[in-house]
């Protein structure tokens, strides 16, 4: 599903990671500053590796030696940021529809309804992002990413900006997503408990290096 073997120099910090995973949810675990976000941004195409390859679903999206760098908008990935990043000038419904429109996909009312139900955001459709709570915003961001029909969903600390209560509110949705949405995910977190609930495979990053890789038990 996802194969990563890259090196990247970012100022003083050097990132070098290599792993391959068929897992449904790859948990990327590490302290802040370990290079998790940079790694995810490379998978998304927002950063370009200095050396190495990234393969998503059999397609080589980065190959530094061959000069391949597929731009972000052609990678067919979904990305849920810590800070939601909903478009403030669009309603929730328009935000949800954005990816479908940009990719020129035909409307898929069944999937639309399924995801809106799954995330419980049917009541928010007419609102503006400015009028949503942090938890609601993050659910809409999840829906927006899913409705663009990505082949890989990247989640960069999606609960990071929420307090404990809100986290517990969103977590069940993420579990349902994993079990029902059928989209492989890369889930970034510094919270081992979160990853134990969600991930099927774990990549541990420490100071820009992969220190362990395997099942959830590597988190001990």
């Amino acid at each position: 599903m996802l194969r990563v073997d890259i090196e990247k120099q970012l100022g003083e910090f050097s990132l070098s990671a290599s792993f391959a995973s068929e897992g449904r949810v790859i948990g990327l675990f590490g302290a802040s500053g370990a290079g998790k976000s940079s790694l995810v941004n490379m998978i998304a195409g927002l950063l370009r590796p200095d050396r190495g390859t990234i393969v998503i679903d059999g397609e080589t999206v980065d190959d530094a030696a061959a000069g391949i760098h597929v731009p972000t908008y052609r990678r067919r990935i979904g990305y849920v940021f810590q800070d939601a990043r909903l478009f403030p000038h669009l309603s929730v419904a328009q935000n949800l529809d954005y990816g479908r429109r940009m990719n020129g996909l035909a409307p898929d009312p069944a999937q639309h309804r399924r995801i809106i139900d799954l995330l419980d955001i049917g009541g928010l459709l007419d609102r503006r992002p400015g009028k949503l709570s942090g938890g609601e915003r993050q659910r809409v961001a999840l829906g927006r990413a899913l409705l663009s029909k990505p082949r890989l969903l990247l989640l960069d600390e999606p609960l990071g900006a929420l307090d404990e209560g809100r986290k517990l509110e969103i977590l069940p949705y993420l579990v349902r997503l994993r079990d029902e949405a059928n989209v492989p995910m890369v889930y970034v977190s510094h919270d081992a408990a979160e990853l134990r609930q969600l991930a099927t495979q774990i990549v541990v990053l420490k100071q820009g290096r992969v220190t362990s890789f395997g099942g959830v038990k590597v988190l001990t």
Partner: protein
Amino acid sequence: MFDISPAEWTAILLSLRVAVIATLVATPFGIALAWVLARRDFWGKSFLDAVVHLPLVLPPVVTGYLLLLTFGRKGLVGGFLADYLGIVFSFRWTGAALACGVMAFPLLVRPMRLSIEAIDRRLEQAAETLGAAPWKVFFTVTLPLALPGVLAGMVLGFAKAIGEFGATITFVSNIPGETQTISSAIYSLIQTPDGDAAAGRLVIVSIVLAIGALIAAEWFARRATQRLHGN
């Protein structure tokens, strides 16, 4: 007192036409330039920035004279446009629009640039991850978020264009019905005996137009903040 004569109407309508055309033509260039100045780093950027601001600090007569040299019938660009495209600027209202557009350009660009700079670039990244190619990102995220600033720039540019005097009169002179705008009409009237009342009326018209434009620009600026906060 407030009976506007046909001659005054001619000047007012001509001013409006000149300012509207100048603003509309300048806007796409203004947006492009504002984007370049806000988003790109390149060699000579501060020079480009200075050139754009030049009409603001140069004596208007100088700008008008430079326009005459460049876009006049014998000018390098003016000659070409006249011979091959049939576009003539000198002593025409189109020349007045060109002069007004050039003079208004720095004022038009500035709010546009500021509003583009204020946009959170992470929103554009988010759009890209959702499959939007760069030009689609521009038209669906950048431009709509910058729209209040774009409109504010247009209003300010329009207000400047409608009051422009020095460069216009230098470049296209002061011909009633063709190049005599409100400003040059006032100038002529106050040099004529008994012209005071007519000049006074035109002065009031310009004040009303200018204040209206400032209020509109302020309103657009307030809208911009609301838009960026998603309310």
